[in-house]
């Protein structure tokens, strides 16, 4: 009997940890674009695929699974999902959303309302509509102010940037 109890405990512990490991999303919050950029772009060799989105943006939500797939399948790039939701919506909206959609790619929340100052730092042509996707590798940059219809379209776009390296 004690044996079975221990097994049950182990079993609970084991699956409990797995559940925590796969669903808990840690979302770092940044109040300024400068702080977010510093945290996201850590070196000059990594190829970053940075997607600007928000839970209230329907086309963003629609293309999110493609970015999650890119994160899971393409190990030559680092996917970062920058949520432009308000900080006050973190607990109630963003975290439950990420759990529901099984998003495991890194998510950060950027709550810098001074858009007029920071949007041009990403790309001078950005009018401010989202979704927008920014690829960065050192000084090389590629910006797209539109959504991607499919994973294939996103993957082709990403490859057009990464293949220039070869």
């Amino acid at each position, binding site marked *: 009997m004690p044996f079975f109890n221990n097994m049950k405990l182990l079993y609970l512990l084991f699956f409990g940890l797995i559940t925590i490991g796969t669903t808990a999303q840690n979302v770092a919050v940044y109040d300024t674009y400068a702080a977010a950029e510093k945290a996201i772009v850590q070196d000059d060799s990594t190829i970053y695929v940075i997607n600007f989105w928000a839970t*209230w943006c329907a086309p963003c939500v629609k293309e999110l699974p493609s970015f999650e797939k890119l994160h899971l399948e393409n190990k030559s790039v680092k996917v970062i999902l920058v949520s432009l939701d308000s900080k006050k919506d973190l607990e109630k909206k963003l975290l439950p959303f990420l759990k529901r959609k099984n998003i495991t790619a890194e998510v950060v929340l950027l709550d810098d*309302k001074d858009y*007029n100052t920071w949007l041009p730092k990403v790309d001078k*042509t950005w*009018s*401010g*509509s989202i979704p927008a996707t920014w690829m960065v590798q050192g000084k090389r940059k590629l910006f797209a102010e539109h*959504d991607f219809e499919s994973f294939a379209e996103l993957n082709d776009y990403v490859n057009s940037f990464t293949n220039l390296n070869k």
Partner: protein
Amino acid sequence: MKIIPLFAVLVTSFLGTTLPVAGGYAPGDKATDFNLKSVDGKMHRMADYKDAKGFIVVFTCNTCPFAVKYEDRVNDLAKKYKSKGYVLLAINSNDPEVQPDDTFALMQKKAKTKGFVFPYLVDEGQKIYPQYGATKTPHVFLLDKNLIVKYIGAIDDNADDASAVKQHYLEDAIAALENGKDPSPAVTKVIGCSIKAKKA
């Protein structure tokens, strides 16, 4: 559809200049007039407002959270500047087949419940917004009486809280126009919901 923006980006990067939106207006350009139906069924053309000192053209929609946050402010601006001779015209460019929240009937309902004092126009066939280069809601274009574009961008610098606004970009631009000056900044950036149209 894919080639044109890419080409525009290439041209832009070659010239080393920045266009607010590929294919859209920059300050100093002459804006096209339109003839669009409002929620009351009447057609509106800027040419019909003979005495207008200028036009505030706001691309907006029914349910985008950013547009909704601004709708009371837009209504207040329309009231405030009407007496000063400026005409505010709101245009909904979303294709209701892509965004079902933006049917004509729901626009009428929105205008009624919010008591809009300005014409709320349908961009039938989504023909006007690409000419202006509007990409999102809300997206504001200030024109002088000759339809010359004077200011493009945001209404102010705080979508969340009207009482915490530090920069009243649009009102400052109108004040500059009143004084015969060019607004500075003449272009501002803000995030918003993309205008929904069928993909070409």
